């Protein structure tokens, strides 16, 4: 048995050494703006499971949503009419790693600008005024965030979103069940794994629109505008994206897109959304 233990320990130490060595390797940074300009193409990390923002249309396989349209408009403003916007499906969990390893150039995926994220990414100005809200089954006794602050309350959220931290802050007694994406979180809500689902209001309104038995309650209890993100240090890319964002706001494209996606959502305040 002693020999066994020694062998195991030895192997573990070896593994650790190898892992530590591999984790030291860091790729050198490239200039994303110059590369994109040459290729006339921006690869965007977007959502593929989020109604209204980025959802794959099952009929034609294309991703559609507000984020997608904004990304397309910005790509064209930056590199001309024939520039291409390519889309890669990401989740809250994968978008930062994908940016870091250069698989995508920029992110337009319902990403809230937070101080922690600012440490590792560069954000543009806000392009959508989101705030966190709660989705419950119609007739539920939950009327707002304060009703969730009870022991034994289980709330669904998506891994890697700011919603997880916010629930810890605003309803510390509630237990958060973190799931992989919005579809799964909503399935879990339908199966009664918890009594509410929480994330940004825009996303919840999108779910409620498709599922009339569920409603958004209590209004937004946080103010968390979305920004477009690039890897830390890609300031040239970020500055040009900001300029393009200003331009589409000035020429009315932006307002048109907000109306297109959110104009027909009952209970949604367009003024809240526009930044």
């Amino acid at each position, binding site marked *: 048995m002693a020999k*066994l*233990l020694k*062998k*195991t320990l030895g*192997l*573990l130490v070896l*593994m*650790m050494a190898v*892992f*530590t060595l591999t*984790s030291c390797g860091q790729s050198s940074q490239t200039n994303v703006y110059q590369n994109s300009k040459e290729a006339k193409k921006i690869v965007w990390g977007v959502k593929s499971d989020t109604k209204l923002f980025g959802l794959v249309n099952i009929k034609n396989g294309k991703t559609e949503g507000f984020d997608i349209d904004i990304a397309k408009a910005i790509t064209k403003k930056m590199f001309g009419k024939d520039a291409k916007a390519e889309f890669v499906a990401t989740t*809250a*969990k994968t978008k*930062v*790693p994908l940016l*870091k390893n250069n698989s995508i150039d920029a992110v337009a995926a319902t990403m809230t600008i937070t101080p*922690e*994220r600012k440490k*590792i990414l560069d954000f543009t100005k806000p392009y959508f005024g989101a705030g966190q809200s709660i989705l419950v089954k119609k007739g539920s006794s939950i009327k707002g965030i304060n009703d969730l602050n009870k022991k034994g309350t289980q709330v669904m959220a998506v*891994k*890697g979103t700011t919603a*997880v*931290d916010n629930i810890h802050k605003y309803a510390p007694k509630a237990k958060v*069940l*973190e*799931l*992989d994406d919005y579809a*799964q979180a909503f*399935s*879990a809500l*339908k*199966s*009664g*794994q918890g009594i509410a689902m929480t994330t940004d209001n825009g996303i919840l309104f999108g779910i409620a629109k498709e599922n009339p038995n569920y409603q958004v309650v209590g209004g937004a209890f946080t103010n968390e505008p979305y920004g477009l993100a690039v890897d830390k240090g890609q300031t040239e890319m970020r500055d040009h994206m900001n300029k393009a964002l200003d331009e589409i706001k000035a020429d009315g494209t932006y307002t048109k897109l907000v109306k297109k996606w959110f104009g027909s959502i009952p209970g949604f305040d367009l003024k809240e959304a526009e930044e």
Partner: protein
Amino acid sequence: MIHVLVNNWQVFLSGFFNTVLCSILALFFSLVIGSGFAIMETFQNKFLSGFARAYIELFRNIPLLVITMFFYVVFPQYFFTISGFAAGTIGLTLYTSSFIAETVRAGIQSIDIGQMEGARSNGLTYWQAMKNIILPQAFVLVIPPLGNQFVNLIKNSSVLAFVAGFDLMYQGDSLASQTFDTINTYLVVGVLYLIITLPLSYYMKHLENKLS
């Protein structure tokens, strides 16, 4: 890598505990259920052996994630709610039991028929012969593949991460997405899995040498 572990050791510890607990539960029940179905499959009765065959083929050929999701999302809509941890453990048990059944059945069938005939002609009942003569020999034979199944089971327990089962992988996911220190977090998770699986692998090897 060490700092990630030091700063968040409570999180990792609770995940580690849940992974071990789930693995032990699933290991025990899948061994019992699997062996049961293995014996059932060797029965003369066509109906019973057919039933065992159907069970094994069903759970062996559906992805583990689908079985687990079924218990987490679909099952509660018709019956009652079961937690992510329970759904994951049930999924893991059913899935692994089908593989264990196949392994144990192969073991039983590789024991010469003369063993059973000899035991029966010496006055043992079918069950006595199975319990005292056939199964002990069969299990010695299948220890190596069984060890594989056990290691697979522990690794597969990461399926709990998808149904909020608060296991090691779930805590790692959650931590990685909060701290953005993806590489180091998953390295710690990997090493913690090794701490469970390596001793088990060695123990099965040890057992194999001892019994052969």
